């Protein structure tokens, strides 16, 4: 539904987006990750037709965004960064305006606006000027204008930025309910969000796609993937660490927390293989007082840092 081919954008000497190609189909929720200035927003602005690519093409529902902009834009919903809206308007008037621009009239328009307001819980503030609303409501207004025409492609630039945890949860829930019949691309700084809503995650740095896979695949690239956290209640005999390192499949055991009553270890596997049962058997044999035994699935933020930091260090 969205197809990018060798997309590139330069601003003078600065290469903002460098040879990016990918496709997103129905039912996919693609999370764009990357440091500030990595080219996430620029890529989104080219998909939505706001920026003209320096090279390459974008197709939305088969329509080239540059050659058939109106057709492409009709099937597209876009929440720009910061959710801009006409501040003097009320959410109701604003959504009616967006609906009219998108060609809806009369009862159809009323129905769509009412349904959308209900979906994003805007009914309570329908008649207050947008300028007077809180950040959370403003974001919902932005989301509402993006979905009022039930687009098949949804582009959301930082949809949960600046929202409180409850609002984030609501917005994520909304995205998930829409995910089945749409192709969604969203950018975020919040890595937990990738797990919460995305079926696919892409890390972008310096305008290039660095990785592209499911969130689980991405986590597997963490050096802590499948590591086991073991917390024991003391007093403990000496040589626990050596004993853990002797368990088959274990590469290394690190002490991560050392106190008089409790000790915690992070046990790293060889080649990311699961080792929890072996560690568990060892603990059982030794009759240690186990307080916690858990598998670390890997940390997205650690993967994110290791993939994007070297690139940043060059600048």
């Amino acid at each position, binding site marked *: 539904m969205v197809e990018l081919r060798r997309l590139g954008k330069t601003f003078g000497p600065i290469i903002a987006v460098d040879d990016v190609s990918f496709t997103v189909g129905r039912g996919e929720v693609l999370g764009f990750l990357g440091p500030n200035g990595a080219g996430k927003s620029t890529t989104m602005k080219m998909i939505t037709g*706001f920026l003209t690519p320096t090279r390459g093409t974008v197709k939305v529902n088969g329509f080239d965004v540059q050659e058939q902009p109106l057709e492409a834009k009709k099937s597209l919903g876009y929440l720009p960064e*910061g959710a801009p809206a*006409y501040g*003097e*308007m009320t959410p109701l008037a604003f959504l009616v305006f967006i609906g009219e621009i998108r060609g809806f*009239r009369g009862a159809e328009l009323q129905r769509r606006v009412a349904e959308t307001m209900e979906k994003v819980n805007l009914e309570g503030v329908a008649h207050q*000027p947008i300028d007077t609303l809180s950040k959370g409501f403003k974001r919902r207004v932005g989301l509402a*204008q993006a979905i009022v025409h039930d687009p098949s492609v949804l582009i959301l630039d930082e949809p949960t930025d600046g929202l409180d945890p409850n609002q984030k949860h609501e917005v994520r829930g909304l995205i998930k309910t829409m995910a089945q019949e749409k192709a969604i691309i969203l950018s975020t700084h919040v890595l937990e969000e990738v797990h919460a809503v995305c079926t696919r995650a892409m890390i972008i740095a310096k305008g290039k796609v660095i990785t592209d896979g499911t969130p689980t695949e991405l986590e597997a690239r963490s050096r802590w993937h499948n590591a086991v956290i073991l917390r024991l209640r003391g007093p403990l005999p000496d040589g626990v660490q050596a004993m853990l390192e002797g368990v088959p499949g274990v590469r290394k055991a690190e002490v991560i927390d050392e106190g008089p009553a409790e000790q915690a270890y992070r046990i790293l596997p060889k080649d990311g293989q699961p080792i929890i049962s072996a560690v568990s058997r060892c603990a059982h044999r030794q009759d240690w007082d186990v307080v916690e035994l858990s598998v670390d699935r890997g940390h997205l933020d650690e993967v994110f840092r290791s993939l994007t930091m070297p690139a940043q260090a060059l600048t």
Partner: protein
Amino acid sequence: MSRIGVIFKRELIGYFATPIAAVFIIIFLMLAGAFTFYLGDFFARGQADLIPFFDFHPWLYLVLIPALAMRLWAEERRGGTIELLFTLPVTLWEAVVGKFLAAWCFTGIVLALTFPMWVTVNILGEPDNGVILASYLGSFFMAGGFMAIGSCVSALTKNQVIAFVISVVVGLGFVLSGYPMVLDVFSGWAPPFFLELISSFSFLTHFNALSRGVIDVRDLVYFLSLIGVWLFATALVLEWKKAE
């Protein structure tokens, strides 16, 4: 209703949803009145016409229309709504024309609110209402010219103060282009046809012709083509700089 109509409606309502409309209407009516009665010597002239009223319109517009026009695009850009507008299924041209027409229509409303002036002169004497109608028409078209210039300048910058100042200067150039202040810059080195061309660009020449009651199609065409050219320039500037 076309998409231009939808944009037009939103913009026009926007003027009245903010204090802009009230402030603009009050200031315009006050200044127009003050100029007519004090500087124009409306009563002492003893003539039943609105010449002292219309004579000050170019100067009123010179300052007041850039104040209205400066927000046209600068505000869209500052608030980020330009990104919203141009990712909706509207063409650049529809957006430029819709916003311009709303602003122009607003000045038309303000101009229409000066009707007590017309009523007054009709009570006091027997003016030539045809001349007054032609003057109103000329004034409205001239307002469109100033507005189109302001639209283009506003598209150039995010900063509304800069947009205002530049619009006033460009507007002044067009008002005075038939006068020595502008022509002296060119006389002496530029060929005579060029001087004539410059002076034919003067708002005052075309407006004065209309306000004498002579509705010459050429004067209307002049203002309409001026509006067209500046709106075309607005679209070019937006295409070039919309992302900045």
